[in-house]
């Protein structure tokens, strides 16, 4: 089957999406007409008519769901040509080289992604105005030549390919994917999952300025779910039928990018994007949002700005990530072929002599990167987050965040002992409980896995020891923290390291080692709390 035929088939299938609903409605109407035609009256006929109407409701609703809400702009900073002349010049230049028209707007977002959105109409049958969405982390992590390759790829989607129809197929796929997403979201309770996930990473949500979508529980009826499954099934058929076209498009867009930006820069950009994506996720989790529980943010402009420092400090680690590209597509219906294959195809092109052009990070294209990063924070962080205190530097943020985390932590042991004693527990209470031999009674109130709960005697103790150790350590550290005796070492290249006051003892054991040993002794089968009591700051624990 040729590319044109394949595209045509996909187009027919696309219209079938509407047809399926019309067929269902016609069938229902047919039942009613048949009843009337055969002169059936009476209570039975009325009942059947009512059932057909009830069944028609989800069908009609399903048809309306095919209407896609107008695409919304993501939280972003819109930059005009006057603000960023050099960026705009680059964008126009790449559009010209691709032989397509430049976007009407450029939006800078905090995501590791670049896309050209076309607000197409009629399920992608008619073109519309274009918006270029460009992630600032890409500007931070890619060189100018690599950025050119990324833009060349995006424009390639509008120009590459052998038929005019395949461009329509690509647009249609995007729309259908959104319909399926919507069905999943409402029908399978994905919204609830999504919200749960978002609440777990509340920090990230605030960072990206997203609001949790409203949970819609009205459509939980089985009929509705059945409808949703029918449409989803059809969409899957459609996506599969048009998959080869879509993947071919990706390869073609890569070739277009290589033509414009050079083979080596394109391959480098393709390798770099998954790495940047992983690194940025890690950066947001472990650095940028570190202080959110303590209602603290990094210095102004640093929320997204620290990413560059992380990339520099962890260059070695990233090099390893670049070596291992994903060999599998992300899902069966992902329009993007596996990254490893895309890189292979680009690298198989003949050398064009341009090499990996050694220019600096694309962030330098911006007139005032500092200013843009600050503006981006204001555009995408929630108003609540923007009201948080700003620290003077990153090490201060770490210390504030860790102190907050430790002093407000209600450890499982704390909760268990509070429940056991019937009054708020302190570290002294814990040590006293250990001395009185009641620790294992208290431990039965810890949240336990099925296996731990089933275990008895020594096996039970082995199960709960790690959790008790974590809790006890945290409670001890909280005592130190409350007296400002804790220090955390900030680093862009490795995890924060805890520093307790004091120096290594005669045997070379650091204060941190001594703490570990003391916690182990307190939780042993024959417990001894003396080493732990000796370690604590003087006023923390009075003798029992």
């Amino acid at each position, binding site marked *: 089957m040729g590319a044109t035929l394949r595209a045509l088939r996909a187009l027919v299938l696309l219209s079938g999406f509407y047809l399926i609903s019309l067929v269902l409605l016609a*069938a229902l109407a*047919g039942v009613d*007409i*048949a009843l009337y035609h055969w002169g059936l009256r009476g209570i039975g006929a009325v009942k059947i008519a009512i059932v057909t109407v009830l069944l028609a409701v989800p069908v009609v609703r399903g048809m309306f769901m095919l209407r896609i809400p107008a695409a919304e702009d993501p939280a972003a900073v819109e930059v005009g040509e006057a603000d960023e002349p050099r960026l705009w010049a680059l964008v126009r230049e790449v559009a010209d080289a691709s032989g397509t028209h430049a976007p009407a707007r450029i939006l800078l977002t905090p995501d590791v992604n670049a896309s050209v959105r076309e607000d197409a109409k009629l399920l992608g049958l008619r073109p519309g105005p274009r918006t270029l969405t460009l992630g600032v982390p890409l500007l931070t992590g890619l060189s100018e030549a690599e950025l050119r390759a990324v833009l060349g790829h995006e424009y390639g989607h509008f120009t590459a390919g052998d038929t005019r129809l395949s461009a329509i197929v690509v647009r249609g796929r995007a729309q259908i994917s959104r319909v399926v997403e919507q069905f999943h979201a409402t029908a399978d309770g994905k919204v609830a999952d999504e919200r749960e996930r978002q609440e777990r990473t509340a920090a990230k949500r605030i960072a990206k300025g997203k609001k949790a979508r409203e949970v819609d529980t009205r459509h939980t009826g089985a009929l509705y779910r059945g409808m949703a499954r029918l449409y989803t099934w059809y969409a899957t058929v459609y996506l599969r039928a048009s998959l080869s076209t879509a993947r071919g498009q990706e390869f073609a867009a890569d070739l277009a990018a290589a033509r414009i930006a050079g083979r080596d820069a394109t391959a480098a950009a393709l390798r770099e994007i998954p790495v940047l994506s992983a690194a940025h996720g890690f950066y947001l989790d472990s650095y940028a949002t570190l202080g959110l529980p303590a209602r603290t943010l990094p210095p102004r402009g640093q929320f997204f700005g620290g990413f560059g420092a992380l990339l520099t400090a962890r260059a070695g680690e990233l090099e390893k990530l670049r070596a291992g590209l994903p060999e599998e597509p992300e899902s069966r219906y992902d329009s993007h072929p596996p990254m490893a294959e895309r890189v292979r195809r680009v690298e198989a092109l003949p050398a064009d002599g341009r090499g990996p052009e050694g220019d600096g990070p694309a962030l330098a294209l911006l007139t005032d990167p500092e200013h843009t990063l600050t503006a981006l924070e204001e555009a995408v962080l929630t108003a609540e987050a923007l009201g948080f205190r700003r620290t003077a530097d990153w090490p201060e943020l770490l210390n504030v965040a860790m102190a907050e985390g430790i002093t407000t932590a209600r450890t499982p042991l704390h909760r268990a002992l509070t429940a056991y004693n019937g009054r708020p527990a302190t570290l002294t209470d814990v040590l006293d409980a250990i001395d009185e031999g009641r620790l294992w009674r208290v431990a039965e109130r810890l949240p336990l896995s099925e296996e*731990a709960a089933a275990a008895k005697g020594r*096996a039970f103790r082995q199960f709960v020891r790690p959790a008790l150790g974590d809790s006890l350590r945290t409670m001890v550290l909280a005592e130190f923290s409350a007296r400002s005796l804790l220090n955390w070492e900030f680093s862009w290249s490795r995890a924060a390291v805890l520093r307790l006051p004091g120096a290594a003892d005669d045997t070379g054991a650091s204060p941190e080692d001594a703490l570990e040993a003391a916690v182990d002794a307190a939780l042993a089968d*024959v417990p001894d709390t003396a080493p732990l009591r000796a370690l604590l700051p003087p006023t923390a624990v009075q003798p029992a």
Partner: protein
Amino acid sequence: MTVLLWILAALALPFVLFAAWMAKVFLKEFFSGNAEAAIEAEEAAATAAEKAAASAALGLLPAERQNTDSAGPSTPETKAALAAVRGGDWRPAADLMAAVGRDWERRSLLTFRLADRAADDDTWLLAWEAARPEDPDAAVVRARSAVILAWRVRGGQRAQHTTREQFDGFRRTLLEAREEVARAAALNPDDPTPYVAEIWLALGLGYPNAKMDDLWTEITARAPHHYEAHFSALQYWCAKWRGSERLATEFAERAAAGAPAGSLLTALPLIAHFEHDDSDDTAADNTPEMVARVEAALKDAAAADPAHPRLPELRHLLAYYLHLQGRNEAAVEHFRLVDGHVDALPWRYRNDKAEYFCQVRDTAVLEAGAAARAGMSGAAESL
């Protein structure tokens, strides 16, 4: 009008199918029928009752009266020592350990029984250690109890049904146990028992084969034909742990061939076969090789000291394989000798080991009875 109706009917077909499918889903949720299962269970119960009656007539015990903690009866001294430690008194246990002395077979079994108790609650063992800090007997019980504790934390399920928490606790406890095992070995250099315990560390920590061979040299230097050492090492060489079917069979055959009669090591080839046999029929259990193995085991059992602490374990295996080979009368002979205790292979891997034991035993009894009646009425014996 008729044409219109036909068109509508054609259009309605997918919808009707769709509605039928939805109706099926609804009905499925309301009725999860298990009537068939109930009938099957009833029939099975009827035959089981018939079998159980035949066994009861021979004086064999029902499943609920089988001891699931050991393979055979304990000596009165062992019973007394176990009862004492339950009450917190370690002295009878210490005295018995001293009396057993250098009888390594009995020492390893007694240590295991005591350590098994200590893995639940070691208060008495702590008291023993406090009273006699350098006692090698207390040390070896401590070492084995630490290893047993680790395996309890892991649980008896296969790897895919074992949680991360269980594996982490298993490893942590094994590493602690390693120190106890080394201490016990240092306190009593002649004793193979700590090294037997170490084999179970080797399984859990995944010793490479070379390290296992080193360990094996230590053991055979101390006790060349020790039953529990061989049994444990065979587990290590099984495919499910660190070996393969070939390695396990080779190890078992070599041990059985090199051992004097009465050492009971003829059990090893049977166990190696049992561990790697996934077939559903008894063809694999009736090969000339398996028949020869059972014959050798019968001779070994006959030559053994009747008080050998591991003799019941071999009898359980013999009863099972004699039954599978259709020699039900001989099987019943062994079933009667071990009846009352079921913690042995091949039953041990099942959660319902007593029921499993009784089910196989009762079948053997029934078939032996039928064969005997057939024999009396003049049917040809084929031997």
